[in-house]
């Protein structure tokens, strides 16, 4: 075989590396700001764009999709070329991939801060951006498979399999969870409602963790850990086995996010069983990584890169032990809705994703720039301060979670809740929130040191944009010897690519066509007294979603005595059939709201939204004063009603024409009740709609029991 000379594209790797560093710092800074508001709620200064519930999705999306996302692209674009002994398939596709992804992130920052959101955690982006994500992802897939097909190394190293799993799975996950009916350019409703929406969302949510935060990073581990330690992976056989086991099990684990809710029991059990099984393949990967370092711990002592990688793999082991534990129903009864989830997630993100990224960056940047790391000492310092930050973050969060959960469940001798006021269970963990913010700042400080160190490294070195390499051409089984070999390869390989793209296209088309039909049919109410929201309540619900209330308030009362005693009747799946999207939430920083309806007078809600501490002294909820100033345009509501009708919500025919006057009527009633309490407010303000929604919440089945008696 003739030896071919070619060049690796280093420029695209450098671009993604810079994006990783910059977005990492931005995302962590926003995290620290959000964490500070957890104990100083007034720090939002009455500005919606910097309020916790608006910046929380910016924090999560920036770190998952921008920091880790760009980290994935950086690692894949670098290692895939080397593993395939080939330049990336297309420089242009790479550029589209890069700029398209940055555009997505930028639009995420702009839309989320301004309350433009779908209301589904980790899938908050509105429909035009969803489409852009799908396109950019296909571009990435095209570039990746193109490279794999023209590789000069016939064996596909295990890392490549992890990359393939990522690319193939994220596509359908994203598309299925993002199926929505657009109402306007930046507003849509998901096809699914209530319990079905919840299931799809967490099927997606869990697999986003699996195939965005885990599989690609395992691929990176399998490339960079052996490289940095300069020794082969402990067991290549184990890497193959645990890869296939992992991807077959991961996709079924989603329902563990909905344990003890009104999701059907058997679905919960299915999710639980698969989640427990996940422990084996996850620890297979963790042990394989750690055992690679056996006999090389002296190197770890001297090399910050290996230190970062070793802690990353250990954190992966901790997180994947914590995960299956949390997926056990009885453990979940304690952990769910508390900061335990937050702690669990941050072991994964700060430890596994963060430290792996830092390790790779410290290893990669000097090599790209043909120089040494600017300061090894600074990297060492970053390592220790980062490690301290992880402990400082995680331990108080676990501790606080236990304290709070036990307080929620504690009954006194008389058979009543010992802490009936939710706030009483918040005060003891406020010190934990302060610890968390301090630890988060330390981690951010480490990130800034890392950025400085790496930019100095870049300045002192010089990048080789196109790195020369040579490898023998891949041996082909040629049936027609003498024919031009290059053309033959093109002919042979194109059909594969085309079949693949066709398959993707067909399945998207099929999904779009089939899904609406049977999803809509299934949204038939199962509880007769549950009625669709009035137009004003629907607008109020959209305010609830836009303000991000669900980040801190659940709407899902689990069937436990401690919960029914605190909040009221437990939630039934039939109550959510008109909820596009579902708003069950995943965290109770504040109390559950499913039975908040008619619990307090309208004026209480008004004052509470304006300044929560005035109604609940010591409350850590941020004030939302703009709600009593911003208006709702009642003329914008009819299209929403029509969209809901399309989704199968049984508003009568021609109802949309009557919407503005219906809204005016209900709004004036609320304005009047507020006026009676001495509050003057125009009926078309957002707060009025929000109050109408809050007062409706969970009341439908109360009516039923009253009339049944």
């Amino acid at each position, binding site marked *: 075989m003739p030896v071919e000379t070619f060049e690796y594209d280093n420029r695209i790797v450098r671009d993604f590396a810079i994006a990783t560093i910059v977005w990492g710092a931005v995302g962590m800074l926003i995290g620290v700001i959000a964490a500070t508001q957890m104990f100083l709620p007034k720090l939002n200064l009455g500005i919606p764009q910097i309020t916790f519930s608006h910046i929380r999705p910016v924090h999560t999306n920036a770190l998952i999709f921008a920091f880790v996302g760009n980290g994935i692209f950086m690692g894949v674009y670098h290692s895939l070329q080397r593993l395939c002994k080939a330049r990336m398939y297309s420089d242009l596709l790479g550029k589209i991939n890069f700029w398209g992804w940055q555009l997505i992130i930028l639009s995420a920052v702009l839309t989320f801060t301004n309350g433009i959101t779908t209301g589904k955690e980790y899938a908050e982006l509105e429909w035009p951006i969803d489409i852009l994500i799908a396109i950019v992802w296909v571009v990435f897939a095209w570039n990746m498979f193109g490279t794999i097909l023209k590789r000069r190394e016939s064996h596909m190293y295990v890392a490549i399999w992890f990359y393939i799993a990522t690319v193939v799975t994220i596509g359908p996950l994203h598309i299925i969870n993002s199926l929505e009916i657009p109402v306007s350019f930046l507003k849509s409703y998901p096809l699914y409602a209530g319990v079905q929406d919840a*299931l799809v969302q967490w099927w997606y949510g869990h697999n986003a963790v699996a195939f965005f935060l885990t599989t690609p990073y395992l691929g990176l581990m399998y490339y960079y850990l052996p490289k940095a330690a300069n020794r082969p992976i402990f067991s290549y056989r184990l890497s193959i086995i645990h890869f296939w086991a992992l991807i077959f099990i991961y996709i079924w684990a989603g329902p563990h996010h909905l344990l003890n809710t009104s999701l059907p029991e058997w679905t919960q059990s299915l999710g639980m069983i698969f989640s427990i099984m996940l422990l084996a393949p996850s620890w297979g990967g963790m042990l394989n990584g750690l055992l690679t370092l056996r006999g090389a711990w002296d190197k770890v002592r001297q*090399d910050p890169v290996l230190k970062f990688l070793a802690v990353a793999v250990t954190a992966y082991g901790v997180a994947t032990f914590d995960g299956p534990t949390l997926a056990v129903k009885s453990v979940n009864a304690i952990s769910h809705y508390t900061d335990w989830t937050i702690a669990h997630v941050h072991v994964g993100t700060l430890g596994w994703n963060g430290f792996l990224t830092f390790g790779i960056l410290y290893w990669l940047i000097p090599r790209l720039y043909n120089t040494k790391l600017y300061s090894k000492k600074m990297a060492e310092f970053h390592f220790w301060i980062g490690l301290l930050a992880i402990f400082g973050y995680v331990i108080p969060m676990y501790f606080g979670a236990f304290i709070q959960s036990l307080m929620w469940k504690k009954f006194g001798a008389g058979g009543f809740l010992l802490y009936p006021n939710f706030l009483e269970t918040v005060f003891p963990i406020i010190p934990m929130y302060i610890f968390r913010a301090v630890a988060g700042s330390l981690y951010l400080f480490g990130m800034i040191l890392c950025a400085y160190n790496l930019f100095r490294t870049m300045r002192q070195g010089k990048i080789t944009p196109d790195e020369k390499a040579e490898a023998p051409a891949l041996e082909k089984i040629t049936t027609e010897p003498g024919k031009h070999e290059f053309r033959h390869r093109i002919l042979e390989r194109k059909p594969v690519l085309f079949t693949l793209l066709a398959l993707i296209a067909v399945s998207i088309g099929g999904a779009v066509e089939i899904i609406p039909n049977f999803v809509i049919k299934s949204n038939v109410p199962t509880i007769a007294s549950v009625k669709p929201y009035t137009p004003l309540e629907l607008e109020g619900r959209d305010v609830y979603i836009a303000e991000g209330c669900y980040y801190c308030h659940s709407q899902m009362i689990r069937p436990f005595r401690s919960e029914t005693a605190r909040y009221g009747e437990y939630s039934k799946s039939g109550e959510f059939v008109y909820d596009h999207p579902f708003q069950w939430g995943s965290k109770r920083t504040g109390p559950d709201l499913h039975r908040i309806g008619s619990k307090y007078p309208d004026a209480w809600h008004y004052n509470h939204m304006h300044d929560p501490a005035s109604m609940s002294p010591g409350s850590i909820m941020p004030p939302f004063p703009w709600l009593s100033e911003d208006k709702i345009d009642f003329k914008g509501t009819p299209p929403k009603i029509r969209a809901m009708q399309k989704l199968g919500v049984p508003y009568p025919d021609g109802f949309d024409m009557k919407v503005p006057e219906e809204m005016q009527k209900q709004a004036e009633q609320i304005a009047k009740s507020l006026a009676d309490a001495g509050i003057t407010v125009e009926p078309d303000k957002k707060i009025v709609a929000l109050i109408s929604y809050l007062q409706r919440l969970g009341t439908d089945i109360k009516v039923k029991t009253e009339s049944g008696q």
Partner: protein
Amino acid sequence: MEVMVLLIFFSLLIAIGFLIAFIISLKRGQYDDLYTPSVRMLFDDRDKGKDADKTGES
């Protein structure tokens, strides 16, 4: 809960896709040698010349 059908369908589709990929890769001999690939990836083909080694350690 009709949406279950959808999720199971797509989950199975993905799983079967990977199963086929696994069988094909097995038949093509991707897993015949479970040692050499782990060592081969350690060798870089960067500029055989001048400063290749010096740049390595950071």
